């Protein structure tokens, strides 16, 4: 586990965009390119009936960031705008980070995207923020290009947009530690089973190093698949599962976290966000709820 020194990094309460529609077409040049790439790599476009499932935003996720940001009370004094995604952002804008930076009017802020590490890029955002002792506005955004792209062996994927800040200034959730495990070896049939095994192993390591008992922690499950959820629920007594059953990739744990805090008051001091990606690996972030009286368990 990468432990984080006490009082050195805080996570704001995330905000998310949740208005979905069942149909939305893409006509950007990047979409044309991506369709070509899918063909080159042998992804069968299939002949799926259009889904009526509401998995799309009405516009590109990066174009919805401004409206979401206006609902927040984040500090404007940030050093970095870090975009995290698994799905490429096929935007008609110059790039997703620059489009968001411009729309938010953030001056003297460096923007860039972290990706191609499955759903684990928010962990890289933490790594960067700690390395630079900075404040970052993190935007996790996912774009599902079409119905075919939504389908997975687990829960279907959907568009996503979540926003939060990482800062050394005290906030509602203190980051106590984080870690990730990348899959060893080449992709194989065993990946799905390994996914839950590696996640449970990572959680146990976090608990052990933080001297916490399973009962003392709420685990926010990444909505990957039924099998993944059952595996976590079998091993840990307090697992929070969002109701919608969509996999929101890099943004998924933050949608759950926002929802978890929207419910009745919570008494668990520690919360653990899990990240699960069948291609890349697994990760977690251990949080301490600063509203709950510290029990000096660490």
């Amino acid at each position, binding site marked *: 586990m990468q432990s984080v020194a006490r009082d050195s990094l805080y996570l704001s309460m995330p905000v998310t965009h949740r208005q979905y529609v069942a149909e939305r077409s893409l006509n950007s*040049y990047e979409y044309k*390119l991506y369709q070509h790439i899918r063909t080159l*790599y042998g992804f069968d476009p299939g002949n799926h009936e259009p889904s009526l499932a509401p998995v799309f935003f009405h516009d590109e996720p990066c174009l919805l960031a401004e409206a979401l940001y206006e609902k927040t009370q984040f500090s404007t004094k940030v050093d970095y705008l870090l975009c995290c995604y698994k799905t490429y952002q096929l935007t008609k804008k110059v790039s997703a*980070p*620059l489009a968001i930076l*411009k729309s938010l*009017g953030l001056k003297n802020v460096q923007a860039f995207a*972290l990706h*191609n590490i499955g759903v684990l890029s928010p962990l890289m955002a933490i790594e960067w923020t700690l390395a630079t002792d900075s404040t970052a506005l993190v935007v996790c955004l996912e774009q599902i290009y079409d119905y075919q792209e939504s389908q997975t062996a687990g829960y279907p994927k959907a568009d996503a947009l979540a926003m939060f800040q990482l800062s050394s200034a005290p906030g509602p959730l203190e980051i106590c530690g984080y870690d990730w495990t990348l899959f060893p070896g080449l992709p194989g049939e065993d990946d799905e089973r390994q996914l839950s095994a590696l996640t449970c192993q990572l959680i146990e390591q976090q608990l052990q190093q933080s001297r916490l008992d399973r009962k003392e922690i709420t685990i926010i499950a990444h909505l990957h698949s039924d099998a993944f959820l059952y595996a976590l629920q079998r091993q840990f007594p307090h697992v929070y599962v969002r109701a919608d059953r969509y996999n929101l990739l890099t943004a998924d744990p933050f949608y759950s976290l926002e929802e978890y805090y929207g419910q009745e008051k919570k008494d668990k001091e520690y919360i653990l966000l899990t990240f699960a990606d069948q291609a890349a690996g697994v990760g977690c972030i251990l949080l301490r709820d600063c509203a709950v009286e510290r029990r000096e368990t660490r």
Partner: protein
Amino acid sequence: MNKINYGIEQIAVYLPEQREAGERLLRAGVLSPKEWAELQAQRITSVPIEQERSTLQIMELTLDQLFARGQLQPQKVKYMIAPYLYYSFPYSFDIFRYLRQRYELTDTTCFAVQGLLCSDFLMGLQIAWKLLRNGREADSRAIILSVERCLLDDQRYGGSAFLTGDASVACVIGQGPQHDQILACKNHIDIRTIPAEKFRKKEDSIQDYAFFINLATTLHHSLREAGVKLEDVKLFLPNNTTPSTWLGLAKLLRVPPSRFFTEGHQLIGHMNNCDLLLNYDLACQRGLLASGDVYVMLSLGNGGGVGCAVCRKG
């Protein structure tokens, strides 16, 4: 924790042997006759292109060079960072998992950096440099691996300014003997220069007064951090966008234009995030840099992202 003395230990470049002539892009309607004539007037007639190998294969051909020298221990590589502009493999294909397996990079975390377009490479360099400096193990390494691959004809379009080809480059960041020390590395983006849409047409301006101001400011800040005077810089290695940008910057800085290495633009083409290491390789082959010389890598991306790295040749 070692805060100092990280630098570029070694580099590897892969340029395909085959070149694509601009005539074909003219016939395909990607270039207008006027644009083609203007490219020819600048002696830009073809660029290296990859027709046989996959993106993964050209990345492997690049990394093979780093590992074949026997100096790089896979278990010491903490990060592999990939700054690139053009998508050339699906996000669902975990290309790094194959690379980690092939090179036994069991403790390496791999991810891509994007968003600053042709200035992503120096953002990747800054990230590697900062993460290593903040790390606990002084002998850790990072690999920066860029691959640029055009899969559609119009990705090669640079109007009458340049043609874009295919390439892959890599470098190792570490503290090995005789490395090129990174004295400073900064990136900057000015929201005033970010366009509303992507540049796709000839008539869209790619010269903007603010670009020059931002380039000069970022350069001065970087030199100050590096403790180097402008006149002590032996060579400026810019990316291969438009030579007029760099000659304009030379004029603004009152630096002889000959100190800006702009030959790569004509010889290689604009390979997006591969330009800087390709140009560095060319400059070294020509003996333009000697041990102890200070050189500066500069990049300007579509959207106005500016990158600057001040290095001392090992």
